């Protein structure tokens, strides 16, 4: 298990550019699901999902808020039981052998899940202790991870005093301290500044280079496009799965508008059911509208919001992302 090489390459490496790096087709499967389904009462959060992810792959999991991304992730991490179907992670069944699965994985939840009142190094030591024991190995790994994620200077700071980017970095450190072979990351870069995002992705690419399998959910297009494979989930269903280049070829009909601001929820309620709105979805902090002719329709909508006193801070026409294409396709298939 021990290797003398550094855990991660330096963060200034240019490895971020080599996304889409081919994975040997005969590499063994790290994650495999068959008909994976999770129901919460009437709601089907995950619906018959089949996945096959090879070792060393970066798998990007995309979809609008509430599509079933986090639920899928939790089932794969063996902290939630599926209603039906099966999932194998690292060669072990998540229902039959949850503890064996847990030994091999690292997990970074969407919400910051560390102890605010402990310091950076105490948080890492705790997880090192849980996985590796209280001995020298845990101590050495703690030091290594502090060094490789550039957390050394902040080791004595309380977690609650860290900024968003540093908190994510600390969360990543605790998820990595035992050197998992498979890493699950639920929106690891949401709500943090571009520089920190870039640094975190550099670390992730470095890990993939060492053969770690990464299962990542994200809203950022440029991140999704650097994955080997992306899967798109909508209303619990896996509607498309493949290499980013193939999926981008899909046609897109209409103009895509991105809105941001504090009153999006109200705007959404006002626009619901209007004929000129062809589709609407939330992505992280923003709302995406699909209009037939945005140049004509958008100004009057914004005028209406202003008259109603709704605060919409930005409204712009954007290039459709892979996610938008997927959602559009899904809805067309449904109707």
């Amino acid at each position: 298990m021990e290797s003398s090489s550094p855990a991660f390459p330096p963060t200034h490496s240019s490895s971020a550019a080599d996304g889409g790096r081919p994975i040997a087709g005969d590499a063994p499967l790290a994650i495999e699901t068959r008909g994976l389904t999770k129901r919460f009462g009437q709601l089907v959060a995950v619906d018959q999902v089949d996945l096959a992810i090879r070792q060393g792959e970066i798998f990007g999991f995309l979809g609008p808020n509430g599509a079933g991304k986090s639920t899928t992730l939790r089932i794969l991490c063996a902290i939630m039981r599926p209603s039906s179907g099966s999932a194998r992670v690292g060669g072990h069944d998540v229902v039959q052998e949850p503890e064996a699965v847990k030994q091999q994985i690292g997990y970074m939840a969407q919400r910051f899940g560390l102890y605010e009142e402990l310091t950076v190094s105490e948080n890492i030591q705790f997880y090192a202790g849980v996985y590796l024991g209280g001995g020298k190995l845990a101590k050495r790994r703690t030091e290594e991870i502090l060094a490789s994620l550039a957390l050394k200077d902040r080791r004595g700071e309380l977690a609650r005093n860290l900024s968003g980017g540093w908190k994510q970095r600390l969360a990543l450190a605790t998820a990595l301290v035992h050197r998992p072979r498979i890493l699950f990351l639920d929106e690891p870069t949401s709500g943090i500044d571009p520089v920190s995002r870039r640094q975190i992705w550099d670390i992730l690419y470095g890990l993939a280079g060492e053969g770690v399998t990464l299962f990542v959910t994200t809203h950022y297009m440029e991140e999704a496009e650097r994955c080997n494979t992306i899967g798109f989930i909508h209303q619990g269903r896996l509607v498309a799965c493949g290499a980013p280049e193939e999926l981008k070829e899909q046609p897109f009909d209409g103009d895509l508008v991105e809105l941001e601001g504090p009153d999006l929820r109200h705007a959404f309620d006002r626009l619901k059911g209007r004929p000129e709105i062809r589709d609407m979805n939330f992505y992280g902090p923003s709302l995406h509208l699909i209009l037939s002719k945005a140049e004509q329709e958008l100004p009057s909508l914004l005028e209406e919001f202003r008259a109603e006193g709704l605060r919409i801070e930005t409204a712009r026409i954007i290039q459709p992302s892979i996610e938008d294409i997927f959602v559009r396709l899904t809805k067309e298939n449904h109707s």
Partner: protein
Amino acid sequence: MKGFLSYRFYALVRKELQQFRRDPMTLVLTIVFPVFLLLIYGYAISTDVRHIPLIVFDQDRTAESRSFARGFGHSDYFRILGEVQGYEELRHSLDAGQAKVALVIAPGYSRDLQLRRPGSVQLVVDGSDSNTANIALSYASQIAREYAIRVTVAAIEERGAIDPERLRPIELRSRILYNPELRSTLFFVPGLIGVIMMFLTAVVTAGVIVRERERGTIEQILVTPLSRMELLLGKIIPFSWVTLVDVMLIIGVGTLLFGVPLKGSLLGLMGYAVLFLFSGLGIGLFVSTVARTQQGAFTMAVLVSLLPSIYLSGFIFPIASMPAPLQWIAHLSPATYFLQILRGEFLKGIGFQILWPQALFLAAFSAFMMILNVMRFKKYL
């Protein structure tokens, strides 16, 4: 991996202690609050009633009436504030709360006595504080009775008819065991150990576990290979240590500062305390598996553990005088049995041969709760 408790458990214990040290609120709850309660019950709250303020309205104004009134002043129970000259003044003094009790001696009191007729005396009591009123009444009738006997005996002696000694068919000689001076401190302080332990084990423990859920840190723990048993014990064992340190602290303050005797053995007492500790932790863990927020956990834990241990255990009110349904609850609460153990150990110095049924109940209760909790606690979100 091997063994019942692994290194994972120790990592959790260390983390809990680090968090404990950093969290001023928990420190206040575990150290300051118990000492504060102890001082309140030791010094301020006292059910002993002494020196009840009394006014006298003597309408007779004779040597006999003054001697009767003085009888009240001589006792330790009453303190004579002074005399009033009319009912209006008497009423005002009671209204203002200066006096709690008024003694009214009717005109012609001494003449009645001389004519061998019953002398009339009235006692007016402020009933707004029912406890004090009750005690005042019983003290007053005791004093009046003694005085009446003295008068009767003197009268009979005067006539020389019979030997006055034979006029008292029953002589009650009471002797109070265990707390001869009936000091309420001795009554409260041992019981307080149970109340504080219940607070720390049930209320605080429920809070720290629900906190993990509320803050989302539980999710990050569940993905680790920590087992259910390790997780539960890792959370509660650090708090057991803290609680036992608190118990020693209360015993120390209680015996040294308040002079509460510990007639039984300290070691035996700690043994019973450990049994009670697990009962309380069992309740706390159960609450934490039901409640979703710290607020909810706190409310629920206070309701199911702390209130019964204060009000239904016999800590303040005797169980025998409660209505039947409350008595049933009292008999299901571990605090009730621990209180009997505490008073037995401190004041009576009785041992296991008498206290074993109580100890058995605590052991059974703890075992039942632990099994229930391990079954209920799931390593899933």
